[in-house]
Every structure is written in structure tokens, then in C-alpha cells.
């Protein structure tokens, strides 16, 4: 066993304290979850391809929408961003590793067990196709979720996911605040590091609140408490308040690291410095602050005093200001840049366009009176998929293409990368854009059947869904091909990219910056 190399065999991955190993584990775990959640999405699209009941029974359909949402949020997007953080933050700030490497291992190794707790109930009760797993929607509203038999499995899955997220976030904050190389002042940090510092704060602030919410569910169901039961003086709406106090910051937890990734990619391929760096930092902080005080915009139609509706409406649309600062900054970075469009840049530019569409529909939904029209329709589904798929996921995929040569030492296949991009970007719009139309026309979400008037757009949406889903297998092929070999990447990989990670060899050695670099 050499002093600097990894351990051999499975032990390397089980016991590792190396941030690059742990980053790799997170990224593969999240990709597997992406495929599982994607398969569930395809079941949903298969059912909705034609009106009438087609493929699965309604309960199974509900289980698919529920598990798809939970797996994509907690299994795919969140761990993928943490994987990026593990790989990149120590290299970006010139640190030898994460601040607490053993706890870093634990943050990851809780996840497979949490995922097991989450999916296990689908297979309990004997008949898988009967849909006996969680089928109460990914938001698990009480009192519906309280009717479910194996609720405790779901609750503990959430607890474990929360423990993992909190420990991961504590590690990231400690690393950023304490392990920066001399001279790496806060306002010199790469944007990705900044966005993760703020994301980690959000996670530590809201994951415990989610833990509180599911704990109340647990005691309500099994130990006789009345938190969400009006008969005992509680209130089911209380659940929604507690859930969305977590849930709204949660959407920024998923998107802020994506902002960070895009802020790294665009300057490299525009060959200009990021426009308005400090305003990017302040906008990120402003978004994070606002995310705590807007949660009830998910509950306009539940019944709230008018003053509450107005307050949450104004607070919500205020988020458009810092978000627009970011979009304008990305655009201004590209303005008169010497632009080239390698695969990572294609994903980043698509992100700017398509995330902005999701932002605009968000504004429409944020306005209380119009939300009364759109609430719980496919318009909402279209909105948050533009934000999370063409937003968060696109940025993550772009980030993988951007840093893959640094991680593996090999260049990916540019032709295949571009093919993957164009297949994805066209199909994803065929998939989600029509959902705006059917939603505005009144098609309900979370229902396996619909009126025939929605048939045409749903057909195209399903076609888009299948193409988009299958395109991601091409992504897997490209990544594995790059790991196995290919044209050797230079240390800088790209044309003069900014950042410490490009100063180390490709592939990045097992240990980097054991002696802190000098930052001018």
C-alpha cells in the first residue's frame, strides 16, 4: 500500500476518507437513482400517452408519481450536487481534502441505506403491481399520508436522508470557512464554492425542520398525538406550513449549486471573466434569504387570510430580482465574448434559456390570483420540470462534461457529447413544453386519466419523454467510454480556464494541495 495511492478492491470505496473517491460514489449513486427515477417517469408517460386507463392501475400510477419525485429530489439531484462539491471544492480552494474526511464517508454511506428504506415499501405487501408503496405524492400531505400502512419506513428514510445532508453540509461549510489556501479570500472564491456555501447553510437550516415534520407524522400515526388532526385541536394545514418551510428552500438547495456550475462554465467558453462577480454573490445570498419567507406560495388555494396571500405573493415575486441579476450576468459574460460551443457550453447556454422559462412560469404561479387558476395543473408540472430538469439537471450534466477530463484524464467524445446534448434539448422541450398548454387548459396533475381534449399534447409529451429518458443512456455510455480511455486531456483541458483545479495534472492525483498553493 503506497503512501499516496488508494486502497485496493471494495475496501477503497467502503472505508475511503478521500474527497475524490467520495465524490465519485455520490455521482454514481445519483446517476443510478436518476435512471430509477427516470424509469418511473416513463411509466407515468406511458400511462398518459393516451386518454383512458392504459398500462397500470391508478394506485400504481400514484406510487410512480410519488416515488419519481422523491427519488429525483433526494436520490438524484441532491446527491449529484454533493458529489460535485466533494470533487471540486477542495481543489477549487486549495485544500488537502474535506475538513472532516471520516464524517464525509458517513454522509455518503447513509444514502444507500436511506434509499433502501425509501423503496422497500414498494415491494412489501406482496403484490408489486398493486402499488402498495407510498402513493401520497412527493409532498406527502397529511392527512392522506397518515392513511398509509408502511409510513414509518418512509419517515425513517427521510430522517436518514436528513442526517446525511446535515453532516455533508457541515463538512462543506467547515471546509470552505477553514481550509482555504492562504490568499483565497472569500471574495476570490469561485462561484461554485460560494453557491455551495450558501446551499449548505440552507440545508442545515431546513433539513431539521423536515425531520420535525415527519416526526410529527410518526407520532400522529403511531403514538396518538394530534398535530395534524383538527379533532384533537391540531390542523392538517400545519403540515403544509412545516413541509413548505423546508420545501421552498429545498428548491434553492437544488438550483443554487447549478447556478454555481453554470457560472464556472460560461466564462471559460466566452473567454471572459464572469460579469458582476460580487453581484452574483450577493444575489445568491439574497435568494437564499428570501427562500425562507415565501413558503406559503405553495398553499394559495388551501385557505389563508387575504393579508397572508398578499404578503407571500409580494415576497415571492421579489425573488425575480436577484434571479434576474444572475441571468443578466450570465448573458453579459457572453456578450462580445470569443465564444465557442463545446458540449459543456451547450448545456450551460441551454440552462440559461430554459431555466429562465421556468423562472417566468414561476412568476405566473407566484401571483396569487393567477395561481388560483393554475394550481395543481400540468402548468405547475411544466414549471418545476423546466427549473429542475432543464435547470438543475442540465447544469449538472454540463458540469460532468466540463470536469470529466480533469477527473479521468481523458477527453470525452465531443461528437457524441453534442449528439447527447441535441437529443436531450429537443426531446426535453417536446416533453415539457406542451404541458404548459394542457395545464392552462385545465389538466390536473397526479391523475392517471384525462379528458380527450388533452390527448394530442400528451401524446407528444410522452414521445419526448421516452426520447429524453433513453438519451441519458447515451450519457452513461459516453462517461464510461471516457473513463476507459480516449484522447489524453491536458492539465488545463480548456482554453485558459480560471481556477485552481486546472493547475493540477489530469487526471487529478489522489491527493491534491497537500501543501497549500499561493493565491495571488
Amino acid at each position: 500500500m503506497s503512501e499516496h495511492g488508494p486502497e485496493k478492491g471494495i475496501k477503497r470505496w467502503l472505508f475511503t476518507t478521500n474527497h475524490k473517491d467520495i465524490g465519485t460514489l455520490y455521482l454514481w449513486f445519483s446517476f443510478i437513482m436518476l435512471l430509477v427515477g427516470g424509469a418511473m417517469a416513463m411509466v407515468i408517460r406511458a400511462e398518459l400517452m393516451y386518454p383512458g386507463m392504459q398500462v397500470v392501475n391508478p394506485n400504481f400510477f400514484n406510487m410512480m408519481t410519488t416515488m419519481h419525485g422523491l427519488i429525483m429530489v433526494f436520490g438524484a439531484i441532491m446527491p449529484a450536487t454533493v458529489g460535485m462539491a466533494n470533487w471540486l471544492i477542495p481543489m477549487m480552494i486549495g485544500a488537502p481534502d474535506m475538513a472532516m474526511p471520516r464524517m464525509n464517508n458517513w454522509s455518503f454511506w447513509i444514502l444507500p441505506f436511506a434509499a433502501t428504506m425509501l423503496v422497500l415499501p414498494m415491494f412489501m405487501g406482496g403484490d408489486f403491481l398493486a402499488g402498495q408503496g407510498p402513493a401520497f405524492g412527493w409532498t406527502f400531505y397529511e392527512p392522506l399520508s397518515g392513511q398509509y400502512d408502511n409510513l414509518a419506513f418512509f419517515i425513517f428514510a427521510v430522517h436518514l436522508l436528513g442526517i446525511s445532508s446535515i453532516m455533508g453540509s457541515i463538512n462543506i461549510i467547515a471546509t470552505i470557512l477553514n481550509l482555504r489556501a492562504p490568499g483565497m479570500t472569500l471574495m476570490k472564491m469561485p462561484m461554485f464554492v460560494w453557491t455551495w456555501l450558501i446551499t449548505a447553510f440552507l440545508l442545515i437550516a431546513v433539513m431539521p425542520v423536515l425531520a420535525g415534520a415527519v416526526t410529527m407524522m410518526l407520532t400522529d400515526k403511531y403514538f396518538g398525538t394530534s398535530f395534524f388532526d383538527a379533532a384533537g385541536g391540531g390542523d392538517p394545514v400545519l403540515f403544509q406550513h412545516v413541509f413548505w418551510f423546508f420545501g421552498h428552500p429545498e428548491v434553492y438547495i437544488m438550483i443554487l449549486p447549478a447556478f454555481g456550475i453554470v457560472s464556472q462554465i460560461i466564462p471559460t467558453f466566452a473567454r471572459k471573466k464572469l460579469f458582476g462577480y460580487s453581484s452574483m454573490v450577493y444575489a445568491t445570498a439574497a435568494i437564499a434569504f428570501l427562500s425562507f419567507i415565501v413558503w406559503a406560495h405553495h398553499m394559495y388555494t388551501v385557505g389563508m387570510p387575504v393579508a397572508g396571500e398578499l404578503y407571500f405573493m409580494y415576497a415571492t415575486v421579489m425573488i425575480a430580482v436577484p434571479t434576474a441579476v444572475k441571468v443578466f450576468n450570465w448573458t453579459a459574460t457572453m456578450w462580445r465574448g470569443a465564444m465557442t460551443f463545446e458540449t459543456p457550453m451547450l448545456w450551460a447556454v441551454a440552462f440559461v434559456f430554459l431555466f429562465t422559462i421556468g423562472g417566468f412560469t414561476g412568476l405566473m404561479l407566484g401571483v396569487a390570483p393567477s395561481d388560483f387558476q393554475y394550481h395543481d395543473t400540468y402548468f405547475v408540472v411544466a414549471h418545476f420540470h423546466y427549473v429542475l430538469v432543464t435547470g438543475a439537471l442540465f447544469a449538472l450534466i454540463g458540469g460532468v462534461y466540463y470536469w470529466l477530463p480533469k477527473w479521468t484524464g481523458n477527453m470525452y467524445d465531443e461528437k457524441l457529447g453534442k449528439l447527447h446534448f441535441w437529443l436531450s434539448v429537443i426531446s426535453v422541450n417536446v416533453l415539457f413544453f406542451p404541458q404548459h398548454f394542457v395545464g392552462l387548459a385545465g389538466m390536473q396533475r397526479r391523475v392517471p386519466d384525462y379528458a380527450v381534449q388533452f390527448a394530442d399534447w400528451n401524446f407528444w409529451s410522452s414521445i419526448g419523454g421516452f426520447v429524453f429518458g433513453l438519451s441519458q443512456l447515451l450519457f452513461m455510455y459516453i462517461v464510461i467510454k471516457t473513463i476507459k480511455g480516449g484522447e489524453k486531456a491536458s492539465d488545463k483541458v480548456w482554453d485558459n480556464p480560471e481556477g485552481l483545479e486546472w493547475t493540477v495534472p489530469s487526471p487529478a492525483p489522489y491527493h491534491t494541495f497537500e501543501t497549500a498553493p499561493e493565491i495571488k
Partner: protein
Amino acid sequence: MTHAQGGYYLPSPSHWPLVGSIGLFLTTFGFALNPNDPTFLMYIGLAIIAYMMFGWFGTVIRESEGGLYNDQVDRSYRWGMMWFIFSEVMFFAAFFGALFYARQLALPWLNGEGNNAMTNEILYNGFQAVWPTDANGPANVGGDYKIIEAWGIPALNTLILLSSGVTVTWAHWGLKKGNRGQLILGLLATVILGFTFVGFQAYEYIHAYTEMNLTLGSGIYGSTFFMLTGFHGLHVTIGAIMLTVMLLRSMKGHFTADNHFAFEAAAWYWHFVDVVWLGLFIFVYWL
């Protein structure tokens, strides 16, 4: 294989995290199989977690006493503990939020306040939710109950916890002066006060369940009362165990005047449970 280049201690690969994960999994799995009568798997899981904590903390203590940690590592642990306590604060915030929501919004609405006149008229006719004595809802869930008055045991417990905050600080002064006797005496007093608090709480719970018909099932009052005080009691117990470990380590000669973060972490945690208690005393028992 340990890396200490550049001064920052990087631990070699460790099996403790995976042991902890298996323990957590068995605990939750064994509990979830039958929440009202947890299976033996849960106890095995808890035993594995305890084993992991002995092993992992033991490793950390050996590394610390072995001088492997420099100031920078110390600062990482400080940040870590601070943010961990912040996460705990937010956990309690969820339950305090539920309490305030129930008292200020949900119950008044059931009474017909705001635009809810018809809710009361039609659904809960004649219901008057008076906090605290009649706050178990229109269905009188759990039946009539009596409440624990603030100025009995709870006030005494407030005095005990506040005193323990003083004794732990006095112990810290002793440590910083290099007066080990004062450190051990102060810690011993703190631990005794801490477990006394837990004992009074247990007595109060038994009294509530057997004499006052105040249970976890006493509507929203019982729910918020027992969940808030229960989780707090659990945290006091954890904090007292942490301080007991610090006491034993002090007696073994661990810690120096300028290197004793484990002690400080336990003290921070102790002040945190102290502050939460003040919130409980004011909003749960008193007002």
C-alpha cells in the same frame, strides 16, 4: 496511512462510518417493521450505534491526545459543532412553530375566529378551545386533563439547569487556570445537576400520566407538551452523558489549559439545552 503534510491531519480509511450506517439502518428498519412494538433488530441496531460511538470517539480522543490535531483541525471541529447545534435549534423550531401555530391560529379558527364563524357553527358547534385546559380539540381527544403548573417542579428545574450553566463555566475557568480540582468538581456538580433535572422530568411525566390524565394523546396540548419537553429531556440526557465523558477524561488527565475543545463542545451543547429550556419554561409551562 495517515497524512499530516501541511499540518492538517487527514485520517486514513475508516470502517466506523459504515458500521454507523448499518447501525442506523437496523435501528430504523427494526422500528419501522412494527412501530408500536419494535422488533429486536432495533435493539441490535442501537447496540451497533453505541459500539460505533465508542470506537469512533475513542479514535478521535487518541488522535487528539496524541497531538495529531493542530489549530486548524481544532477550528474545523469548532465550525462543525456550531453548525450541528444550529441544526438542533432548527429541529426544536419546528415543534415551537407547531405550538405557536396551534395556539395562535388553529385553535382560534376552530373557535370561529377570522372568517371561520361557520366552521365553528356547523362543524364544531359549541366548542370553546381555551388554552391550556381545553386544548385537546372538539373531540376532547384523550379526555379531560390537568396541566403541570409552571411554579412547581418546572421552576425548580429552571433553577437547576441555570445553576448547571454556572458550574460548567466555573469548571471551564478551572481548566483554563490549570486547576484540575476545580475542573473536576465543577463538572461533577454539572453532571449531578443535569441528571437531577432528568429525574425530576421523569417524576413529572409519571405524575402526569398516572394522576392528571395528561398524556401524549391529550390532543394538541399533550402533543406539543410531551414532544417539546420530551425531545428536550432527551437532549439533556445526551448532554449529561457528554459531560460525564468529559468528567471521566478530566479525571484521566486529559485536556490542557489551551487544548480542550471536546470540553468546550460539550459545554456549548449544555448551554444550548439550557436556552431551549428557557423557551419551554416560558411558552410551554408558564404563558
